[in-house]
């Protein structure tokens, strides 16, 4: 792509939007809202058209836009999209306008809108960047707006929660910074020029094995905090509980994906060998997170905290799929990033709508809402089933691919992960029963059902939840080539081979079996030849003996 680049434009539009918002007087809230929404919608439309323009047959980065920036260090403005990032970009494009329309900050609309737009730019930049330095900038850029959104528009303990969020993430980022610098400079050893281009870095693979392992761990530290992976997750429930609804939606929907996306994009492609070697550690943390998150979610008294812990469990599935290192696991993981964004985003929106009416998140305070809010109950049920992983809705497709893909290489981890599926049903259905079933009394009995606007906000999410459950193939068709390329890359550089069945299905199993039979046949033949030779030798000896004896 030369000249105008759609990707650069997508990153710049929200920044420009934020700048425009900053110039509008504080009192003109309606104009601010309109500008903010217009920018977000524009990006949303662009992201969707990107998905349609995307060439599903190609595994390469597409719509690449490149401009040299700091030449001395090999830093360049480098954006591109492939099957792994494409739908995360679309997800970001869809969730931001929904979060902006669907929630009300109640105060200081100006600051709120500006921060939200900057946050969107940060998220998009992170997903699109192919230059490590640019990625790091955007990755850090997401931090500040979210910090201010939680701290400025959150609930009672917002200061504690926002600071915790900030420090945790910063802590992780520090590791990544060191890792990044080390990677870039060590890769440039000898004659090769400095570069931050991840395509180039992945190709070079210049780090010694144990160095690569340390650098991989440094990167992983940053992403593990972001995901969050057990035991780095404790910032998440606080951040979610205290964040305003839009903050929770974006945090769960998009921001956490920066962690899992980072593991896939940087962890696997830059350090394939280290990823293969250290996979058991990450897999273990992932399945511990699946069970642990679900167990903690079961007992929560605060509805938002419950959803937050469920995210810990769900993100555990994604990490499980990623480090299963099979096509199915990774494709499922990438798809599940999108699915989780849709269903958990929707859950937070619904919980937010309840909060707007009842001003409480306490499960014990809510009761019998299905009678006073039947439409809300229907929507909650659908989203809940999506989150539980009911076939026919989006969550199942990703979860199933992850589990079947990890079973092929990591049987027992997958079995534990599958057990987590039971728990998901338990905590969500129990919460639903306590909140929606029964006969409402007092305030619960007089709540107004969802407004037309709220229904319109939820409609696209519900549509996608059903569509991706029934017909996920258009999405998978675009994800698969890039995932297959990545797995091949890991195989080549990581000294690893995924099982034949993951590549070729029944055909693969047959080939494997035939190969084994041939090998066994050969071994048998060699064995019999050897025996024959031995026998002959013995015979010869005997003959010789006889001859010598005879003489």
């Amino acid at each position, binding site marked *: 792509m030369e000249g105008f680049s759609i990707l650069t434009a997508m990153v710049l539009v929200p920044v420009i939007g934020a700048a425009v918002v900053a110039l509008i007087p504080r009192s003109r809230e309606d104009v601010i809202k309109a500008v903010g929404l217009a920018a977000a919608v524009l990006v949303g439309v662009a992201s969707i058209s990107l998905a349609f323009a995307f060439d599903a047959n190609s595994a390469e980065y597409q719509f690449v836009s490149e401009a040299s920036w700091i030449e001395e260090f090999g830093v360049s403005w480098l954006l591109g999209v492939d099957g792994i990032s494409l739908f995360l970009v679309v997800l970001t494009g869809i969730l931001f306008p929904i979060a902006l329309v669907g929630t009300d900050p109640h105060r200081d609309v100006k600051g709120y809108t500006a921060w939200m737009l900057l946050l969107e730019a940060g998220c998009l930049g992170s997903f699109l960047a192919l230059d490590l330095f640019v990625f790091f900038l955007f990755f*850090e850029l997401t931090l*500040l707006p979210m*910090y201010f959104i939680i701290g400025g528009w959150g609930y009672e303990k917002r200061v504690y929660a926002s600071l*915790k969020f900030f*420090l*945790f993430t910063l802590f992780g980022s520090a590791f990544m*910074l060191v890792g990044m*610098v*080390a990677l870039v*400079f060590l890769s*440039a050893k000898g004659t090769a020029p400095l570069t931050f281009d991840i395509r180039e870095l992945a190709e070079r693979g210049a780090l010694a094995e144990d160095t690569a392992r340390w650098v991989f761990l440094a990167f992983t530290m940053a992403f593990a905090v972001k995901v969050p992976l057990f*035991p780095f*997750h*404790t910032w998440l429930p606080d951040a979610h509980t205290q964040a305003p609804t839009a903050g929770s939606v974006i945090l769960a929907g998009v921001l956490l994906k920066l962690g899992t996306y980072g593991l896939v994009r940087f962890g696997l492609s830059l350090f394939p060998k280290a990823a293969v070697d250290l996979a058991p550690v990450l897999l273990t943390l992932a399945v511990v997170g699946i069970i642990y998150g679900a*167990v*903690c979610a*079961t*007992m929560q008294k605060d509805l938002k905290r419950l959803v937050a812990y469920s995210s810990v469990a769900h993100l555990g599935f994604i990490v499980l799929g990623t480090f299963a290192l099979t*096509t*199915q696991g990774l*494709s499922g993981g990438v798809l599940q990033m999108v699915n989780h964004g849709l269903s958990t985003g929707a859950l937070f929106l619904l919980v937010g709508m309840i909060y707007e009416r009842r001003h409480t998140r306490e499960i014990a305070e809510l009761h*019998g809402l*299905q*009678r006073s809010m039947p439409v809300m109950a229907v929507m909650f*049920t659908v989203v809940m089933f999506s989150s539980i992983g009911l*076939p*026919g809705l989006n969550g199942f497709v990703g979860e*199933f*691919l992850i*589990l*079947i*893909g990890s*079973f*092929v290489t990591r*049987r027992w981890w997958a079995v534990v992960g*599958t057990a987590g*599926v*039971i728990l998901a049903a*338990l905590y969500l*259905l129990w919460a639903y*029963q306590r909140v*929606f*079933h*029964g006969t409402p009394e007092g305030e619960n009995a007089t709540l107004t059902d969802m407004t037309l606007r709220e229904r319109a906000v939820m409609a696209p999410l519900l549509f996608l939840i059903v569509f991706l459950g029934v017909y*996920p*193939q258009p999405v*998978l068709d675009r*994800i698969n080539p890039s*995932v*297959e390329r990545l797995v091949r890359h890991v195989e080549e550089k990581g000294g690893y081979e995924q*099982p034949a*069945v*993951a*590549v*070729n*299905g*029944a*055909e693969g*199993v*047959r080939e494997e079996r035939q190969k084994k039979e041939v090998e066994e046949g050969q071994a048998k033949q060699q064995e019999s030849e050897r025996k024959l030779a031995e026998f002959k030798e013995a015979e010869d000896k005997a003959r010789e003996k006889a001859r010598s004896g005879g003489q």
Partner: protein
Amino acid sequence: MADLAYLIPALPLAGFLGLVVLGRRAGDPRAGWLATSAIGLSFLATVATFFELLGQDAHHREVTKPLFTWIAAGGFEVKAALLVDQLSITMALFVTGVGTLIHLYSVGYMKGDEHFARFFVYLNLFAFSMLVLVLSDSFLFTFLGWEGVGACSYLLISFWFERDTAATAGKKAFVVNRIGDFGFMIAMFLLFTTVGSLTYKEVFEGLEGVSHAAIVAIALLLFLGACGKSAQLPLFVWLPDAMEGPSPVSALIHAATMVTAGVYLMARVSPLLVEAGGALTVIAIVGAVTALVAAVIACAQDDIKRVLAYSTISQLGYMFLAVGSGAYIAAVFHMITHAFFKALLFLGAGSVMHGMNDELNMKRMGALRRWMPVTGATFIVGWLSIAGVPPFSGFWSKDDVLLAAYDKSPVLWAVGLLTALLTAYYMGRQVFLVFFGEERWRREEQDGVQGNEPSRGRPEDRSEAEPPAEGSHSEPHESPRLMTTPMVVLAALAALGGLLNLPFGKLKFLEHWLEPVFEEAEHKLSPGAEDLRLVLALLAIAAGAGGIAIAYAIFMRARRTAAFQPALLKRGSGGFDDLYSFLVERPGRVIANFTAFVFDARVVDGFVNGAASVVRMGGSQLRKVQTGYVRNYALGVTFGAALLLGYALLRMGI
């Protein structure tokens, strides 16, 4: 060929979508008629497909109808496709047939319910899911239907969501089923790993190279799934509670169709089971023990619907006993006759409740046949059928099951025979208490044994909306024609269903029809067993007659209302609920509470906060750095980065 097969699931789906779009506008009774015609037309499509298959040569009655690629990644690919063969069409026939009758009944039963339209939305969605389950050509697509019917079951059990018991029962059903689904899912993973495909055909073709241990594991894991869905030990505890749903739901989902899905799955994978050796024995034993245990618990129930629930569990046990004995045709035969008579009994129970102001305790009933002649007569037909009285349908199918069990092991047969006696007894008890004897409902609070079961069924506010004429002294009344007609049709089917597969040469219609499907898996009876058929049949008749005689002696002659009801059996699920609560729920709660509020809050998070305070106390100099202003931290990061960068540059010598 069989192009109409697409319509079989498509029509209920269309009905569901139509009702969703119309919402409340569809209203009462229009929503009901719409849903009923959707499933009715689906039945016609099934009949048409059936005759089309019948016109084919016996070995060309199998055809796959592809729809679209559902999920594909790398070497994994699953299509949404329908498999039309003798087995799936047989299932589809009784699912849509019985389904239509129950839809029709529901139009009358649910009349006046506030959520009338919603009920039929769920009902059509259920029918669609069930037909996907039955007609699918792969494990995964079957699983879609499998989970779909589970979700509908959840929604319909907790249909009267204001009732706490209904809400809890719905949740319990879903969660317990999930334990079974765990098995189903792992079985699919294993199949993919060892065979590389999830379509039935490819799996059965690819079994040759799979190790015996893997096949046994797959069979047992699938059976775990079946145990959940079909309410077998140890996962049966959800079904009795599921009676919280409206009676037509109990009839359709929790008796005739959904709960037989586990048996269907076992029949579908018969080529796999035949290779699994020991797994079959496990299935047979679990089936036989479940049949017996559930029958014993049924004897102690006072709730008219709970008796039927345990009876369903027990009868499903028979079907698994048949599967475990390699008698798939007998299992399917019993599934069909059971669908007829059990649906009939549940509809009868619903009709009794309808006429008795939602009374459920059989001790407060009696002599109802005089007030509800049609309900009484049809219920008695259902009773004779389940009790195994010839020539009613249950006799023939149960006889096939027992014969096969005898060939497997006389011990299993003996358990089955004892169960048959108990079945005749508890069903006799039910019929005598409800339809014969004294009009106990005239006297309130009789014999001090107030049912420890509260009146289940409909929410109070509904009864308030339609207050009974004069409190509990209002006279019972027969249900409207809309409800009795389906019962009469089902009664005819329950009486004559045996004709499907009479054990005489050419009259074995079902056997000839299904034979090609089970060709290799079906166990051939040993000649010895075949010779004993008549003797065993006579013994079965004797057991049935004995059970009825005992019930008659106690409840008709002696006019008692209670016998053989130890407290243990009367408690939730015959004590199993208590056991599970003790073993799983309470420890689970403690562990989860500890994890969430002690370990996570104090240990994991405490470590973080602790580290922070150590740092804070560590030095007064450092305290100044902890300003809490993010801009300062950001500055720190920048400086740190610059330092590192500088260090790296120096090291590189640049």
